[in-house]
């Protein structure tokens, strides 16, 4: 079973984001980078499928700058077999169309049975690439899956629908699935994995970049949150709390 996993290099989730001088991108000077956490669920799922099948190959594909080899190396240390870096110093500035196009072009020739993505990347939070990628590849797509099983060329997946409904789908492979938290517990890179990762290949490829449809005009940080409010203590405060949530905060 051949599986492609799309991964993105994103700022660590505890980064204090600063807007860059251009007002359209973030200041990356002091940023620590990580593999997008949702992509880790996708990678773990791929590795588990390969392990269960006892054969196969997991290829991680990333559109990113040269520095993204660090994140790809991490994926290899966790258990991916090989990595493809679609090297582009401007990777962070593309819209989802361009990203999906570049990924599709790279994945098309791989002949994979399954493409796994995170449900979104925690930097832009848009969740578009997986779906657009499926469209480009002409494959079925299920988003935000929380369970996955593969047998006889079919994937059985579950996702949370509206109102907490559990939706179950059967999808013919190949397909594109985007992965949500709860799908699995991503493993840590073991020493063995880290040492083996040194020897696994990272292919650097020139990406096929189309033209984008969206431009970022400006970025700004959200206003500072106002201080919390203590309405009172114990049961006596419940009525007032409900009233304020209803009338002032308007969340009820």
């Amino acid at each position, binding site marked *: 079973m051949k599986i492609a996993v799309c991964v993105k290099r994103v700022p660590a989730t505890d980064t204090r984001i600063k807007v860059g001088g251009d007002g359209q991108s973030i200041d990356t000077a002091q940023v620590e980078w990580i593999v997008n956490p949702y992509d880790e669920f996708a990678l773990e799922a791929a590795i588990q499928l390969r392990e269960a099948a006892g054969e196969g190959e997991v290829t991680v594909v990333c559109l990113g700058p040269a520095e993204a080899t660090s994140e790809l190396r*991490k994926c290899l240390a966790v258990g991916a077999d090989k990595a493809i870096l679609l090297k582009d110093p401007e990777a962070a500035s593309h819209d989802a169309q361009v990203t999906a196009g570049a990924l599709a072009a790279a994945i098309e020739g791989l002949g994979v049975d399954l493409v796994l993505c995170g449900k979104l990347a925690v930097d832009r939070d848009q969740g578009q690439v997986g779906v657009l990628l499926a469209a480009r590849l002409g494959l079925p797509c299920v988003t935000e899956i929380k369970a996955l099983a593969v047998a006889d060329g079919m994937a059985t997946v579950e996702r949370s629908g509206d109102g907490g409904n559990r939706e179950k789908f059967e999808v013919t492979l190949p397909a594109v699935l985007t992965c949500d938290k709860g799908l699995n517990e991503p493993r840590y890179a073991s020493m063995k994995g*880290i040492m083996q990762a040194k020897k696994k290949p990272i292919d650097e490829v020139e990406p096929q970049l189309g033209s984008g449809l969206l431009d970022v005009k400006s970025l700004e940080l959200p206003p500072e949150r106002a201080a919390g409010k203590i309405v009172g203590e114990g049961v006596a405060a419940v009525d007032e709390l409900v009233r304020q949530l209803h009338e002032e905060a308007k969340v009820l």
Partner: protein
Amino acid sequence: MSESILSDLFLGELRSDLALPYPVLDGDQQELLGMLRDSLKRYGADHIDSEAIDRAHAIPEEVLRNLGELGLFSQIVPEEHGGIGLNNTQYVKVCETLTAIDGAVAILSGGHSTLGIKALLLEGTDAQKQRYLPRLATGEMIAAFALSEAGAGSDAQALTTTARRTESGDYRLDGNKLWITNGGVADLFTVFARTPDHPRADGRTSISCFMVEKSAGIQIGPEEDKLGIRGSSTVPLVFDGVPVPADNLVGEPGMGFKLALRILNGGRTGLAAGCLGAARLLLAEAARYTSEREQFGQPIARFELIQQKLARMAHDIHALDCMVYLTTGAVDAGRDVALEAAACKVFGTETLWAVVNDAVQCAGGNGFTTDYPFERMLRDARVNMIFEGTNEILRLMIARTGLAEPGRRMAAGVPSQEHYGRRISGAEAPDPLTVPDGLQADALALSLATAELARASAKALQDHGESLPGRQLVLGALADQSIAAYGQAAVLSRATAVVERLGEEGAAAELQLAKGACRRLARWGRESAASLRDNDDEVLLATAAAVTAAGGMPG
């Protein structure tokens, strides 16, 4: 000229060639380190419960096994023997990470890598390495270092455990060891013992180093009930005719004590980095607590006496950070850093103690309860000033070693007008380090501190002559001056590198910390220097004698 920044400070020399540029890891080294640290941190956050380890006085076996898989025990084992082969900087960065995960885990790791397996790595034969290192790398065998005895603590050379040769050429070990870190969980012990059957040509006590398997018959004593790092194993060992094959003698027979010192001298940066990791965590906890805790209608972080603590912690932590990794960079460049590592250990352990004290104070009554991590970290921090060379012994070592060359030159009567002479008499300060504009004044302060140390050293040699090695108060003050100056050099070096990389504007945070750190260190150095001129040493020593004579409060 020596290869040691710190030692040359006593000569009034500021070794910009050794202090600059600040060493950094290359991309591949950083990447490997990042993966290992990431795994350990995530595993720690998900599966290591420091409170439970502290209460249970043990690290769960499953945690040990999992940490082994993540590479905890293989860090400095070379690749060809199944390890990761980290260099010193990488290894020490992991030490820093580990204390922030759990104090006892950090001690376990250090007892294994810094101490337990080091003799094999440094002087083991290929066969010895092949026999043990692969199993030590996976954690199938955990190692411990057995040097201390009841009568041989700081004076380790006074050890009495003895290895006698048998007719077959093997050895039998008899004696007792004490305070053996990892002793209760270890399978392989690096044991130092007297070897009267290998007399030394110079007539000094013959001590040799042996790798001894627990299964050979070492009796493991009961766990010590300790103030802190309660999850770390500390036990006495009894050797009652334990057989050791001749093949398990490591290094040159009779030269084991030198090897022990080499191991200890080389390992102290790991402990210092451990203090750094714990101190960082404490500062983060204190910063959070003081922002959330409100009194008089505002967060207590708005009050100056709290701000003083937060800043003091940050400045000292920054200084320690710069010192530790300047030192590990020197190790990786192949230099002997016994003095610098000792300086890191002294400054690091005392910084952590001050930081934990400030952090507990910031947290008020809550800091005193087990609901918060402060009290456990306070207990865990205390031992650092005691083990791996007490801070007293290390201060003496730094000063005595640093004074050796000035003393030699003085005895040889090198005319005072010669280069060293002007410097050593303090008449000429060395050229300041080349640093960014904002730190010129601090570079000058270091230059003056260096001249002052040389002057004070010369004066101490003249005033006390042969009795100087016993004048511990003088030596302590000189050691403090040199540690402070080394710290200043490290901070300036790092700031210079960061400004080069990010520009003055981008390096604003670094420069702020550098300034604060340099000033604190410079003040400490000046105070130490002043204490040599203006002190109460005589009355202090007289009172101490009276206390000893009276068995407590005199009179």
